[in-house]
């Protein structure tokens, strides 16, 4: 897994490539915590995310709760079919803000 960040105006975009599972979730959590501490508007680019397990969902849920508490936004885009399926199964599609494309996600942020 590789994590990197980029910026688009006042929005910070975190790119998570590879997979988000029990091996990689601590690095992802650290990266996300650091970004959330410094930015109100955050988007997660999942276009290169291969698969996600519940260890990864745990990180996303924590991030969503934190943004909610601090009045920030967290949007996710670029899910492949497998990631989308795990989101559906776990009910995450309806509790996280998932967008079909980067343009949609950043649009009205």
């Amino acid at each position, binding site marked *: 897994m590789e994590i990197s960040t980029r910026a688009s105006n006042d929005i910070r975009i975190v790119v998570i490539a590879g997979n988000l599972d029990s091996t990689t979730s601590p690095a992802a959590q650290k990266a996300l915590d650091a970004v959330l501490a410094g930015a109100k508007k955050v988007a997660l680019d999942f276009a290169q995310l291969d698969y996600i397990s*519940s260890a990864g969902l*745990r990180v996303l*849920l924590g991030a969503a709760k934190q943004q909610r508490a601090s009045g920030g936004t967290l949007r996710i885009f670029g899910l492949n079919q497998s990631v989308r399926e795990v989101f559906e199964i776990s009910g995450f599609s309806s509790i996280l803000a998932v967008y079909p494309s980067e343009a949609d996600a950043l649009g009205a942020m």
Partner: protein
Amino acid sequence: MRHGFRMSVGADPDGVGKVSAAFAGFAQTHALPEAVRRSVNVTLDELLTNAISHGTAAVDASLLTVEVELDLERLTVTLTNDGSPFDPFGQPAPDTTLSVDDRPIGGLGIHIVRELMDEVSYERRDGHNVVVLVKQLVE
């Protein structure tokens, strides 16, 4: 035509990582459909981390064995451990309709496995937990 592999690893996070990497390699060698590879990798992560996280002091799993068999129609994964008896599929499904604020952390792994796999079964055999998972290669 049958292919497969079998490996045993220590019941610790490094062991889980090794199985994950081995399966990804096997999937590549045999050109498994991406959706199958991903579903199985997720499943392995869920069930193997459960085996190392939820032990009791009395009987902890010390060894995790994974056996993968591939034929033309399906992939069969058998997970065996020597931990305390636990039937993952005897659990009620979690409430997946709760909001961000109310949702408890955890309790999703087994539910995800059940949904991603086509067949799941559990058996206690000779002091071991044996879970068999089947994923069809064609829908």
